[in-house]
């Protein structure tokens, strides 16, 4: 198990290098000017030219990138052009916000997705199944940013239940965090809830038809016991493998949701960095995010092995 984990981590290193090369390649193709972003829409061309010199943007992109790699190997991700702060510091400040939002979404996804899927499977072909699956289908078909906009109007403006967005640090005000994060988390999670509910239902139907479920019933196990102990333990295996996928989608899907709900997460940070041509931030941030995602995949694979004894022993 340990060897397996270490091997997976070793495999991640060349992938990270590739990630950074790809993002470098893309950035080399991106036209535009971070000075223009910094100067804002009312800046005059004259101010802009001077700002470019000030920021050292008149150097070639190649030499900027060389500087970046030089620093990278010293563990320094450089300074953001737009924010004027160290990339690593900003990324470390922001990622907990995104990760906590993604985890909240994940909790919503798992609770709602699993229970909708399980209920639908248990009431297979009854009206509850139909309603649940219609809900799941709508979930996977509605664009999340649109859902976010509509939710703001509904829950903030008309009903006044939830704030329009923003971010409240969890440890300062858990209730405030909960209120502020609910709409973004829900609009992020909606599609994943749909996907998970559909996956859970089909897996559950498959598992409920297995011989070992019959065995469990033949032992006199009650229906809840059959579902929870015998069926769920098997349903969870494919579910866990998609959870990694879901979490990475939640983390990257947050670009647009974070923008709409004014959540200062890593998604909004990198989205703005790309739109603002903040090259050091894009490079450093993407490597960081890719590393997190790769790590997440490793965790999921290890978790998968732990859940499925057939894989574990091999």
């Amino acid at each position, binding site marked *: 198990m340990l060897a397996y984990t270490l091997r997976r981590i070793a495999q991640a290193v060349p992938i990270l290098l590739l990630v950074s090369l790809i993002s470098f390649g893309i950035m080399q193709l991106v036209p535009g000017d971070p000075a223009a972003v910094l100067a804002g829409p009312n800046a005059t061309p004259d101010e802009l030219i001077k700002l470019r010199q000030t920021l050292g943007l008149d150097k070639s992109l190649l030499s900027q990138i060389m500087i970046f790699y030089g620093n990278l190997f010293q563990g320094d991700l450089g300074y953001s052009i737009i924010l004027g702060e160290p990339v690593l510091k900003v990324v470390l400040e922001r990622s907990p916000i995104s990760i906590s939002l993604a985890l909240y979404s994940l909790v919503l996804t798992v609770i709602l997705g699993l229970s909708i899927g399980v209920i639908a499977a248990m009431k*297979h*072909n009854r009206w509850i199944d139909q309603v649940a699956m219609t809900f799941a289908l709508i979930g996977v078909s509605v664009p999340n940013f649109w859902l976010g906009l509509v939710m703001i109007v509904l829950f903030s403006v008309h009903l006044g239940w939830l704030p329009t967005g923003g971010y409240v640090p969890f440890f300062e005000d858990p209730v405030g965090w909960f209120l502020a994060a609910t709409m973004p988390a829900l609009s992020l999670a909606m599609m994943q809830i749909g996907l998970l509910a559909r996956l859970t239902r089909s897996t559950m139907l498959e598992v409920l038809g*297995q*011989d*070992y479920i*019959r*065995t*469990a*019933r*033949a*032992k*006199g*196990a*009650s229906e809840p*016991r059959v579902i929870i*102990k*015998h069926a769920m*333990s*098997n349903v969870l*295996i494919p579910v866990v493998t998609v959870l990694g996928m879901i979490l990475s989608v939640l983390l990257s899907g947050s670009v647009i949701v974070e923008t709409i709900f004014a959540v200062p997460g890593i998604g909004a940070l990198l989205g703005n960095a790309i739109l603002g041509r903040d090259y050091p931030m894009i490079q450093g941030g993407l490597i960081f995010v890719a590393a997190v995602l790769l790590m997440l995949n490793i965790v999921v694979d290890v978790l998968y092995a732990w*859940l*499925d*004894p*057939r894989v574990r*022993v091999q």
Partner: protein
Amino acid sequence: MQKEPILRVEGLRTTFTGDEGTVVAVDDVSFDVNEGEIVGLIGESGSGKSVTALAIMGLLPKSTSQVTAERIMFDGRNLARASDREMRRLRGGSIGMIFQEPMSSLNPVLKIGDQLIEPIRIHERISYRAAFDRGVELLTKVGIPSPVQRMNDYPHQLSGGMRQRVMIAIALSCSPKLLLADEPTTALDVTIQAQLLDLLLEIQAETKMAIVLITHSMGVIAECADKVVVMYSGRIAEQGPVTDIFDRPGHPYTKGLMQCTPELTGNPRRLTTIPGALPSLSALPPGCRFAPRCGLAQPACEAGRPPMIGVGQNHASACIRADELVASAAQPEGAEV
């Protein structure tokens, strides 16, 4: 006078509803199982023998199947009227069951030990420790080496034969009065089949529980059973004590089954199979369901359902020519002796 049988099935009927309409899988099946008796339930795949066992256990999916019976008396209780709760208490407690597929009948993600002691914990107020010890004991009893280690293994770490031993141990864990064994050896190698059957017989001799042994092999029946119930296409074709059936089969189908089993006839040249296949449940012939495949069929066979005709002590056959058959079977043998 004879004691009450431990299981008395009367007029069991099971239907399935699916996309293609409703089919009757088991139609008016009645038989008795006495205490300490091994009853062989034999028939081809699809003849309704497994469904019969599952219906008795109440394990058929309620959404797609309907089970009715005049009575299913088990140990003084009518299972046909029992609540879900009562059924749960019986399942794994007084009635154990073993399934055909040892490979898939154990939950792949739970430890052997957990699965083994589960029925004990469900049916008895007993500590985990005590249940665990009982599990080890059971594994020893079914002949599994180093049982304590095996308790912590997962199913995929065991061979098929070992898994079926585990299944037997699970079924036996609460000392049932009745064991329903649904083709317990079919999926296994021949040598292992024999070992397992010996094991079952050994345990039966010790515990005196009744066994309903479902199989499609006359060889297994010959070796184990006290009584035979032959099923064909959802109905009982013939039932009776095992010696009667083998000596004087009262149904052409029973005869055909025996002829398929070389070690019984002792004459490989007479190895014949029954021509044709089981009729589809959605297109059953009107009279005797075996008639289309029967070499002895007469026009009368197709007129209506043949009644059960007694042809000996506790021996009955659903063939209008049963008496003829019994007589002819006795004749040549008697002549030779």
